[in-house]
């Protein structure tokens, strides 16, 4: 099958723009009428729905930020009532408070359709065995890909994360042809497989990797493809957009952002000016059809560029290139978003250590390794090694709970960590990806 939904995927550009304008207009009127949050935002920005007369007028609309979800925890900016929601997902927020996203049945349908199109565009379909090695549960990755792959008739193997040996055995026994996970986890799998005497290239049927949820490079892609003998496709999304959402096609030249579902802008992070194709800037996304939690001009914080020409695959929708950086200090550790502010917030709950900290990130083998250095407070210092070890364990445990990712903690002497005036640089990222 070439396209899951050819009418949409190959729609002429002009028709797409007309459709986008209609959807935007409807969305803005709906939010102005039904969302107190966005109504106030528009009022403050001096914009009325009537001011939106062309698609380019989207620039008049105010931005939304990750912080808006946190500040309106858990569901204050939802536009749908709870009785209309069919699912929640939850991700960790920037200050220890999680952010909650909700879905109506239509939201789930559009999410699944977006993934169905993407998965078909990279050559998947009936007959494929699709191993979902993203986490299932509150994280959007597992369940999102699960329903997308089922929709196109692939056979889903819902392994979730962890227990890598068993994943490799199942991959062999059930003849997995495609896997969805983070690129670093796939590399880790390759290493574990070799220790088991299994070559993914020669001893399995794996041919496609749907990889995302963390930054990766062309080098990493080349290494994965060459070593494991598969095609590696980039997939992009965040929980605010629904989850993993947009996937590369067989051209492997950026992921298609389905224009009936999302409108993408790339802005100069300094001036806010709209940038053209090929220019690097901050990505801003408007979700055109989301019902429960509409996101308008959402500033995700990712830096990238887009291309607007018709893709070699025949699809008319714009393509966005691999994320090349962040505008803030968010880290992605083993696929999980980590903000230094979460670490700070957590440390404030542990009186035995000071407020100062440094985060050091390395890649050990294929996996990310995060070390947090903290100072032992004078009051808490005890001559007993076991007491100090208990402090360290406690901090590791609390950080793990707050960040949803395992962290190593190192105790250092008071006063030995750098102090910052103005903007703190508390992260040393030594990963080469």
């Amino acid at each position, binding site marked *: 099958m070439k396209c899951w939904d050819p009418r949409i995927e190959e729609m002429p550009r002009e028709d797409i723009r007309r459709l986008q304008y209609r959807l935007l207009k409807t969305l803005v009127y709906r939010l102005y009428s039904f969302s107190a949050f966005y109504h106030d935002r528009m009022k403050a920005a001096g914009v009325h729905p009537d001011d939106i007369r062309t698609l380019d007028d989207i620039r008049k609309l105010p931005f939304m930020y990750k912080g808006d979800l946190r500040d309106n925890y858990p569901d204050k900016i939802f536009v749908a009532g709870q009785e209309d929601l069919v699912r929640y997902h939850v991700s960790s927020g920037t200050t220890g408070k999680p952010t909650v996203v909700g879905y109506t049945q239509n939201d789930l349908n559009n999410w699944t359709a977006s993934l169905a199109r993407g998965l078909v565009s990279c050559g998947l379909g009936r007959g494929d065995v699709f191993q979902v090695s993203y986490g299932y549960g509150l994280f959007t990755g597992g369940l999102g890909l699960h329903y997308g792959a089922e929709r196109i008739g692939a056979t889903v193997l819902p392994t979730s994360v962890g227990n890598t040996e068993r994943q490799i055995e199942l991959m062999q026994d059930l003849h997995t042809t495609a896997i969805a996970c983070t690129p670093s986890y796939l590399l880790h799998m390759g290493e574990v497989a070799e220790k088991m005497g299994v070559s993914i290239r020669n001893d399995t049927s794996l041919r496609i990797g749907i990889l995302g949820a963390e930054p990766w490079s062309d080098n990493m892609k080349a290494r994965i493809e060459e070593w494991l003998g598969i095609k590696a496709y980039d997939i992009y999304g965040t929980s605010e957009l629904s989850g993993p959402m947009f996937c590369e096609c067989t051209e492997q030249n950026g992921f298609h952002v389905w224009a009936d579902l999302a409108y993408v802008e790339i802005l100069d992070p300094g001036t806010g000016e709209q940038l053209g194709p090929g220019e690097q800037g901050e990505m801003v996304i408007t979700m055109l059809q989301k019902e429960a939690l509409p996101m308008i001009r959402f500033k995700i914080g990712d830096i990238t560029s887009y291309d607007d020409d018709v893709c070699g695959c025949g699809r008319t929708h714009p393509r966005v290139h691999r994320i090349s950086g962040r505008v803030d200090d968010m880290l992605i550790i083993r696929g999980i978003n980590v903000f230094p502010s979460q670490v700070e917030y957590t440390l404030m709950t542990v009186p035995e250590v000071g407020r100062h900290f440094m985060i050091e990130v390395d890649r050990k083998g294929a996996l990310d390794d995060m070390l947090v250095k903290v100072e032992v407070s004078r009051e808490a*210092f005890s001559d007993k090694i076991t007491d*100090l070890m208990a402090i360290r364990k406690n901090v590791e445990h609390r950080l793990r709970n707050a960040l949803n990712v395992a962290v190593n903690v*190192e105790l250092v*002497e008071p006063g*030995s960590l750098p102090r910052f005036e103005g903007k703190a640089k508390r992260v040393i990222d030594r990963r080469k990806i």
Partner: protein
Amino acid sequence: MEHKKYVIRQISVFSENKPGRLAAIAKALQEEGINILAFSIAEADGFGVVRALVDKPQKAYEKLSGIGFNVAFTDVIAVQMKDVPGGLYEIARILGEGKINIEYSYAYSGKDAAVLILRVDNVDAAISAIRNGGGTLLESSLFQ
């Protein structure tokens, strides 16, 4: 209380496990003319605790804290050992029979005899046990 004269104030210093930290501690003590009578290093993953008996513990505490170290006082006792085979056994047996737990210990061999420095879970009980068992405790005034 009579036992008090046997209780010795040891200084414990938190130290990262990296080159130069012990030198920094030793240099600071030298600058203040503080003599180290015995010391040990306990190491854990990435950090350590330097423990020392010094002749001027209060001064050592102030100096090391002043330059940023984490310092604590810990009560220990010092027991004289015969510097012959079985010397350690004699002391350890007394403590074992008295159900006294040794948290850590270090020793040095002096001119007249060997000395065992002990951190125990119950200092009072340990002092009684050693005295009743025929051991010789060193008074803190010998050090400080």
